């Protein structure tokens, strides 16, 4: 029984993976109804996560990819946020998830592994949902919410981004400091050589301006793309001065500058937010 455990020891063994099947199932239930345990698990998971880098990559069989894409196409975009974001100001997501009471969770016992695991995250999801809905709602124009979320997943790590070999027209980039702070979402139409930037959670430092830069090997130095406001999008800004290779391969960076922008025409300091482009809306075959 996991009740014999100290919370932090239980969280440690869960995150480490050494609990047996029934203990794991119990923890899955308890974490859904005990915030202390949930927080402890997440913290230890995060502390140990760098070990993931030590696990050697192994290429999965190639047929899995096509099978998965087929499965996904069949499922459709059942993104919770995509469907819930329309319920403005309502109680998004609580209709189906919230209907399950913690007591019912416990009564279901531990034998039904997958169901238990699915249900176990319900409370966390509800708790975090409202914030997420408002955060991601900003992203919906021109890009579906799920695509934006997936794009976000990729964009949070520059190193995971693959430069597309095909010739897609629309790209998005999340400009951010780190995974905690997506600041601006940038959409680029490479065909028209135009971009739009929307603030996500950027807060402008008092008495300063945000300035956007394009950085690419083929340009001698970062080139200014103008100022960004934290409360209004800039739409259809021209990139006609740059070729498509630079536009699609560039790093986009935001610096903090004196009001009105850098006086020298070059960034005054290190970027506070950066991002690269990810294609969306690609046509396949």
């Amino acid at each position, binding site marked *: 029984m996991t009740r014999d455990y100290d919370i*932090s*020891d239980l969280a*440690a*063994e869960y995150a*480490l*993976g*050494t609990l047996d099947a029934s203990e*794991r199932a119990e923890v899955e239930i308890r974490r859904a109804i005990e915030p202390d345990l949930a927080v402890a698990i*997440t913290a*230890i*998971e*995060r*502390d*140990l*996560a760098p*070990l*993931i*880098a*030590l*696990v*050697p*990559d*192994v*290429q*999965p*069989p190639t047929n*899995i990819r096509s099978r*998965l894409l087929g*499965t*996904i*196409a069949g499922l459709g*975009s*059942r*993104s*919770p946020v995509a469907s819930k974001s329309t319920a403005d100001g309502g109680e998004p997501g609580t209709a189906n998830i919230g209907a399950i009471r913690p007591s019912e969770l416990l009564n279901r016992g531990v034998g039904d*592994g997958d169901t238990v*695991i699915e249900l176990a995250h319900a409370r966390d999801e509800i708790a*975090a949902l409202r914030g*997420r809905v408002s955060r991601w709602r900003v992203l919906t124009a021109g890009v*579906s*919410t*799920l*695509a934006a979320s*997936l*794009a976000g*997943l*990729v964009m949070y*790590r520059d*190193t995971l981004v*693959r430069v597309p070999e095909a010739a*897609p027209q629309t790209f998005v980039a999340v400009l951010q400091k780190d*995974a*905690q702070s997506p600041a601006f979402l940038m959409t680029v139409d490479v065909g028209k050589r135009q971009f739009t930037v929307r603030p996500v959670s950027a807060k402008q430092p008092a008495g300063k301006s945000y300035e956007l830069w394009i950085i690419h090997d083929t340009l001698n130095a970062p080139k200014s793309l103008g100022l960004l406001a934290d409360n209004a999008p800039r739409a259809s800004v021209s990139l006609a001065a740059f070729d498509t290779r630079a536009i699609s391969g560039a790093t986009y960076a935001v610096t903090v500058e004196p009001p009105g922008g850098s006086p020298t025409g070059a960034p005054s300091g290190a970027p506070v937010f950066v991002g690269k482009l*990810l294609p*969306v*809306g*690609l*046509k*396949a*075959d």
Partner: protein
Amino acid sequence: MRVATADQQAFATLYDATSAKLYGIILRILRRRDLADEILQEVYVKIWERAADFDPGRGSPITWMATIARNRALDEVRRHSHASIEDTPEALNVASDEPLPLQLAETAEDVRRLKECLDKLDPKRRDMVVLAYMNGASREELSQQFGHPVATIKTWLHRSIAQLRSCLSP
């Protein structure tokens, strides 16, 4: 002619960027390709369904995805004890000084810090933690491997994690 939606395209990109890592994690724990294939697919379907739930405040996306993969693989391996630790004796070498397979520059600093803290543990206890995390070793397997009762292993694991966490906390 098939037209992929933006969602599907983004998913394919995500898959290409992360599947080798997740498959490596799952295969190492399950040690059976047929099972690993199945679990990998389940994990990506889960990621697809939950993509909009990803909360950047809780860590990086690869951590989130790897955690889903690890937990799913661990559930599977605990429910049916498929393999024993003797199948992968090389597992003990993972914490050695060989160059780390790091493509992710961003994590290098995290890995370095964690390795430093791991190296402050008694070597046996460090190996236990690494074996448990990377290979999904159970307490019983660790008990066999290291020749100590399960209760002792348990206590050591608790202490090791507590020590690691205090070493990691700024």
